[in-house]
């Protein structure tokens, strides 16, 4: 018979109370595991979604994130093909690398002259085939279907715009859109003609000089818009982009300006007919954990690259600050739940051990008079609290994992990550997070020990004669 055995028998002595305590602890541990697993799953989804969009790392000119939008030309990496080749051919990066592809940010005014409508746009040029690969990343093993790339490799003059932008450009009918609002009739009447005149004039000028314009004219079946921007020299440039379809963006302000296009189209807008350049090189790795290694290696490569001293490597959390905001929000929610459940554990164990002490005052007096020291009494009760705490935490974590993985995960819950328009399936991802499971058991067991400390000390402090009177 050892002390643990004694503690166990004393717990069995009042089965009802021990079961109630165990139940409370179980529920606490279950809540922590299920919610923790749910948060982990959502963060996984969010990370997958973010990495599909922005890659893991982006190589850009220093200051691009802050000032690049205002001056895409100045912050451009002009000889990006050489840099991409250098990265793709590097033996150290090769096993980690999935995609290294240029993107080019461009903004200006978009016009649908046929309808006399125009609005600002903020667009991105992509290498279409590489974007396919980006959107198919599933390094977290979630089995999510690739996000659809609406750009088409065989349509070099065609792009995608946000639903909001389509509405602003009065393209609902042309694109045969449902849920698309027409602008109020009177709204554009007053000032539209003036803008229209100058814009269409520009468009006409540009068309006359554009090499590619000849190939686009026959494709009259596809609706098109004019994109206007300014080239390096400050000269206005205009490109005609066919609109393949619209893509609703989750953030309204983005939906109103969103445009995605083949990078060649964007390059023509920013640099003129023969220009080349990228705002950033998007680097996507096989796994998120490789970020540090890959970044270090790329920085080394940049040091040897002409102009590399002016470039920097930023990770997806820098590029999309909302990632960390959402993760922090979830973490805060999780911490709140964990704190609540810690408090539940604290009070149920303190209560159970306290009642046990109250019932066994005579026993305490007996043990002390036999010669057991105060610390023996203290240890006895702490052991009881620790035992029930650990038991409750272990059982709760097991039940929570089972319920999460085999119950909730079969229920088909979906979630729309912030800023996205499409829901994705999420569940409880507990099994892939041993730290969550072990941490829950460890912390709850620790709390159980701490909370039995108080009643155990009370027991240890009792005066022997006083305690013996309670037999």
């Amino acid at each position, binding site marked *: *018979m050892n002390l643990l055995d004694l503690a166990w028998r004393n717990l069995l002595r009042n089965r009802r109370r021990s079961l109630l305590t165990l139940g409370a602890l179980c529920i606490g541990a279950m809540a922590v595991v299920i919610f923790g697993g749910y948060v982990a799953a959502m963060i996984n989804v969010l990370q997958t979604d973010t990495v599909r969009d922005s890659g893991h790392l982006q190589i850009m000119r220093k200051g691009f994130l802050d000032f690049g939008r205002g001056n895409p030309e100045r912050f451009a990496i002009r000889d990006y093909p050489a840099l991409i080749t250098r990265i793709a051919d590097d033996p150290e990066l090769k096993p980690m690398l999935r995609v290294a592809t240029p993107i080019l940010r461009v903004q200006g005014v978009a016009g649908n002259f046929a309808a006399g409508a125009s609005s600002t746009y903020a667009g991105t040029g992509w290498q279409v085939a590489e974007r396919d690969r980006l959107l198919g990343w599933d390094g977290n093993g979630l089995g999510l279907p690739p996000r659809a790339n609406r750009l088409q490799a065989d349509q070099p003059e065609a792009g995608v715009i946000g639903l909001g932008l389509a509405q602003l450009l009065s393209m609902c009918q042309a694109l045969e859109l449902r849920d698309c609002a027409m602008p109020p009739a009177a709204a554009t009447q007053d000032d539209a003609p003036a803008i229209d005149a100058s814009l269409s004039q520009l468009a006409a000028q540009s068309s006359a000089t554009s090499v590619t314009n000849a190939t686009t004219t026959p494709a009259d079946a596809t609706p098109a818009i004019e994109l206007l921007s300014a080239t390096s020299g400050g000269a206005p440039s205009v490109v005609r982009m066919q609109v393949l379809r619209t893509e609703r963006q989750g953030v309204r302000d983005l939906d109103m300006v969103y445009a995605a296009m083949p990078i060649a189209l964007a390059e023509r807008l920013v640099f003129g007919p023969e220009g080349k350049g990228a705002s950033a090189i998007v680097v996507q790795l096989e796994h998120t954990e490789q970020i540090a290694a890959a970044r270090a290696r790329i920085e080394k490569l940049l040091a040897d690259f002409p102009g590399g001293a002016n470039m920097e490597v930023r990770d997806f959390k820098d590029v999309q600050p909302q990632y960390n905001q959402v993760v922090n929000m979830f973490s805060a929610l999780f911490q709140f739940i964990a704190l609540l459940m810690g408090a539940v554990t604290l009070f149920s164990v303190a209560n159970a051990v306290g009642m046990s002490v109250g019932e066994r005052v005579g026993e305490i*007096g007996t043990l002390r008079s*036999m*010669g057991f020291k*105060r610390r023996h009494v203290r240890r006895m009760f702490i052991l009881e609290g620790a035992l029930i705490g650990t038991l409750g935490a272990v059982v709760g974590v097991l039940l929570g994992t089972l319920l999460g993985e085999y119950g909730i995960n079969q229920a088909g819950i979906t979630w729309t990550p912030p800023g996205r328009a499409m829901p994705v399936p999420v569940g409880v991802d507990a099994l892939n997070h041993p730290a969550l499971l072990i941490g829950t058991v460890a912390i709850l067991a620790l709390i159980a020990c701490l909370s039995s400390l108080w009643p155990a000390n009370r027991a240890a402090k009792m005066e022997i004669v006083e305690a013996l009177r309670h037999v």
Partner: protein
Amino acid sequence: MNAPHAITASPNPLRPADTPIARVRGLHKSYLLGEVKVPALRGVDVDIPRGCFTVIAGPSGSGKSTLLHLLGCIDRPDSGRVEIDGVSPQTLADDQLSEFRARRIGFVFQSFNLLPVLSAVENVEYAMRLVAHDPAQRRQRARELLGEVGLGGMEDRRPNQLSGGQRQRVAIARALANRPDLVLADEPTANLDGHTGAEIIALMRRIQRQTGASFIFSSHDAGLIRAADVCIRVADGQVVGQTAGQTTPRPSQEVQHEPA
């Protein structure tokens, strides 16, 4: 009778047989009942002889329990001195005092005070944790002690599966577990019927003879008091008389119960 080695006399070679096991001088103790100070001991001076079966006798409320608590080093006096086997418990820190009790003093209680979740043999064994470290040895000695108090075959019963007398026998075995020099029993028969009580006193007396340890029990039962070697009478918080009882051991069947 063949004494097994579980119970053997362990005379202390450092102390001559005629020095008292306990020496008490000017002992005062009072309790606070709300605002009121209730005196329980009012200047007790007594020497308790070594190796004897001593009874502290007196009416209810006379201070028997209080005196036994002070002799057992589980309470501290307001003033005065207690000396157990030459040691003044007043000078010991709390843990040292526990250590002292563990090695030198055994307790038998009125309500038996066994741990309900432990079997008879485990109750005896548990006390031995204080001193002996080999579990196999502990188990062995606990079984022998239970055999000695007449509970052979009942080692694995829980206290609630034993009668009052049997429980008190377990408690006696437990008190003997660490070979104490002094065994204290505060009204060990008060929760037992007369016949069983007499049996328990007879058992204690036999064991006292076998071990040579000093036993002190309290009682207000005239029949049981007669079984003692030495009788210390207390009344109203003071010792009012000390008499040597019959020094020859009386056979247990002759011990009669008489209501006090």
